[in-house]
């Protein structure tokens, strides 16, 4: 099961990174969201995997590590705030630049004013 868990985290990282490397803002936001899932799962797993051992005193004999859970809990909420910030930044960027390309390239490829950026 550890292997399966690690593979899932790895897959989330791969797909997240791939999306982050795209050129338009929206896929990047998706990628960041996915990447933060991966990070949260990774951090969470540093307390090791255990089943039916929630860290609520009196409900079981052994307890899962509560510390990573507390850290990840706030990470989830802050992750949301950051995602929201990036989303708004993307909207603002699109409004100001007229394009949702991360490098500010206009969609119109034929335009000569379009600054060609080597990527």
């Amino acid at each position, binding site marked *: 099961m550890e292997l399966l868990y690690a593979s899932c985290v790895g897959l989330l*990282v791969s797909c997240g990174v791939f999306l982050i*490397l795209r050129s338009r803002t929206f896929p990047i936001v998706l990628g960041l969201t996915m990447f933060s899932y991966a990070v*949260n799962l990774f951090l969470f797993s540093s307390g090791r995997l255990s089943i039916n051992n929630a860290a609520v*005193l009196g409900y079981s004999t052994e307890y*899962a590590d509560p510390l990573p859970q507390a850290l990840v809990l706030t990470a989830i909420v*802050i992750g949301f705030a950051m995602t929201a910030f990036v989303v708004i930044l993307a*909207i603002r960027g699109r*409004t100001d630049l007229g394009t949702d390309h991360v490098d500010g390239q206009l969609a119109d490829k034929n335009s000569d004013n379009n600054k060609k950026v080597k990527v």
Partner: protein
Amino acid sequence: MTLLWIPLLSLLGSIISSTTGKLTRNQSTGLTLLMPVIALLMTISLAPAVFSGEVIRETISWIPLLGINIAFRLDGLALLFVFMILGIGILVIFYARYYLSSNDSMPKLYAYLMLFMTAMLGIVMSNNIIQLWFFWELTSISSFLLISYWWHKPDARKGAIMALTVTGGGGLALLAGLLLLGNIVGSYDLDVILASKEIIQGHAWYEITLILVLLGAFTKSAQFPFHFWLPHAMAAPTPVSAYLHSATMVKAGIFLLARFYPALAGTDIWFILVSLTGLSTLLFGAYVALFKHDLKGLLAYSTISHLGLITLLFGLDTKLAAVAAIFHIINHAIFKASLFMATGIIDHETGTRDMRKLNGMWRFMPYTATLAMVAAAAMAGVPLLNGFLSKEMFFAETLHQQLLGSMSWLIPVLATIAGALAVAYSARFIHDVFFNGDPIDLPKQPSEPPRYMRVPIEILVALCLVVGIFPNFIVDDVLKAASFAVLGGYVPEFEVALWHGFNLPLLMSAIAVIGGLLLYTQRRYLFQFQASLPSLNAKKTFDESIYRITKWCQRKISDSENGSLQRYLMLMFVFVLLFAGWPLFEMNQLGGQKQLTPIDVHNAMGAALLMVGTISTVIWYRARVVSLLMLSVVGLMVSVVFTRFSAPDLALTQLTVEVVTIILLMLALFFLPQHSPKESSSVRVVRDIAISAGLGIVVASICYALITRPLESISAFFLANAKTGGGGTNVVNVILVDFRGFDTLGEICVLGIAALGIYKLLVNLPLVIPASDSEGRPWAKERYPILLASISQSLLPLALMVSFYIFLRGHNLPGGGFIAGLVTAVAFILQYIAHGSSWIVARLTINYRKIIASGIAIALFTGVGSWFFGRPFMTTWFEYFDIPFIGEIELASALVFDVGVYITVVGATLMILASLGQLANEPKEEVNT
């Protein structure tokens, strides 16, 4: 504390003189002179102790852990330099009072001069090499200010930049060298370093250390091929040149050679590098000086040549050579300062420095001419003057060495040639300027300068004579003390005397004088020959090479930094991949000792769903709505994972956040294009897949390695103390609001800041709202479905009650402020979706910013509250109460803190979504972008 006061007084003087702008010139000069005169008197009072062989030290601890102290020391060598720096400095300040025109700011020049003086004093008196380097750099910077004093002249600016570039670059090399030196010896203390000759020279780093230190010294003292900055520094006012190029700036490099002579010299590489550099500089400078038409240009190259001579002496393999070098340092400072000052007078009185125009000045200023001629004769090495004595010693020393093996006879021959050249250019200085016919087209009618302008020159020329005739009387003590310091204890018996009898050095001197005069009389042929050579313009070459270096850097920078964020991200990921991946290859075994748990059906199913969702998100990423839906599957599965692996709090948080995130992204899609165009080339896609796959593998491997190893956690403490110390059984929540409450406070602040940032970004945003979707279909007329509207209304109180319940039980069971806040926010957002924000705004006027602020304030004051009970910030208090009809209830201050968290979360979440949703409600534009 006397030692510390010497540089400190000079620094004080710099500050004082910068404030004398409103005073008369005499007052300003007088005030400025005060500090260096006091410093000079203090130095004189210390001199007898130093002459008797004592080394005076003063140390103030600064960073004892790193061995960095503020440390000063005064030995013979330092004393000699302090005398020169202060003595000539005082004369220069006095001289500058008459030199500067009324348009020039005197306080500015004085302030820079005194700053420079401070830096020089710091160099020669430092007992810590890092501190020495600091002052070294300070000389570069203050000399930059001095050279560019006439900042409106392009020559001055360029000359200053050139000097700064060359000496600053050398300074960096010196720093590297000194750091290596400190590492070899294990201390930055000069005393320790000077006593560690064997350790340093036996070390593998010796050669590189030596080369770096020498680079610093050679650039500073304008040794060939780094000499070219010095002639361009002549754009400075003449008093500055007189100071910088006689006793100070360029002598700092020489000082460095002398300072580290006990520790670094004595090896073959030292002799080869130092003597050959010195020899080539000596010859080159003397030769070029002959052809300069500008008086200051002649003096500049003559300075280069004499610096080469001193360097060569330090490079010769005899102890007496070092003594001769020190002697020549003194003599050169004296006659060169006076010559520069005389040149300044000529320039001041005639308006030109061009020797082709200046002729026959003898008739106009006989007194100045006499002084200048004596000084120039000293430069040429004419008997009865100080220059003769040290030149004689130099000639003698060139005869006693085996540096070039069987070709060693070349050195005295070349030295004699250089001597002849020096005689020739000195003769030119005298004859061309003061005799040789009548002046041609002078801008001013020449006359004698103001009486007191000559005083500094008179003093210096008198010194030339006194030293030249009675050497033992004046310089014996200081020369012996300085030699004692340079040679590290043992000083050979030597006698500085005018007459040593008829010997080889005297013959060399005679040849030099006669040859030099011959050279000068036949100079026409030499000038013709020189004119036929291709001219090498150092300034142009320098400018071009600087230009080329800048261009090259710009190209390199734009190659890697082309403004493409996409590319930066890619590069960053590649580096993460390299640095995170590399250690994995050095691990023997990935898996740990922990027993693996078997995969059951539920987990397999969940994992499969998660993977399918993830991959689908990527596959359909261009169809944005589809990929968003797929992403929500992933988010849901993540919360299921948390549920499965004993983290109910996380699962609840993830679930609610997921809802909010997806709604937010849906809203965002309204303002963003609904499709991503196909842009990436196949090559790029393959490259990105490779990078992301690599990163995924690395992270998965690390994750696997981590979770298969046994856990050593500090959480046992939290589990043991949650109930007794924090009063709750839900350990995760107790950690959040109690044990790590301070972290949580920080985190809700971040949340609030993010929300405020978003608010700010959206204010006054001129959004163009599409009238139709990307397919061209207009939006539905019925914007708020009636079914959702009626259900959501009845759901609201229910949802609020649930969130209240979750909040209250949070301390003991899964729940708490974060989750409850999110649930409340979702309940309100549902109202927004069902009715539109204008409907809400009409019924509920809430200022979310104030809500966020009050949430953070509540949390903060709960923390502060514990101060009133004499406890540290955020100590939790709790008590159980028995309330009739309800039963036993626990009240804890942590609960109040959680209220703050709750309010902040609600405020921030709603503000983010409501501000965005508000925009969608504003009047539509008719354009579809």
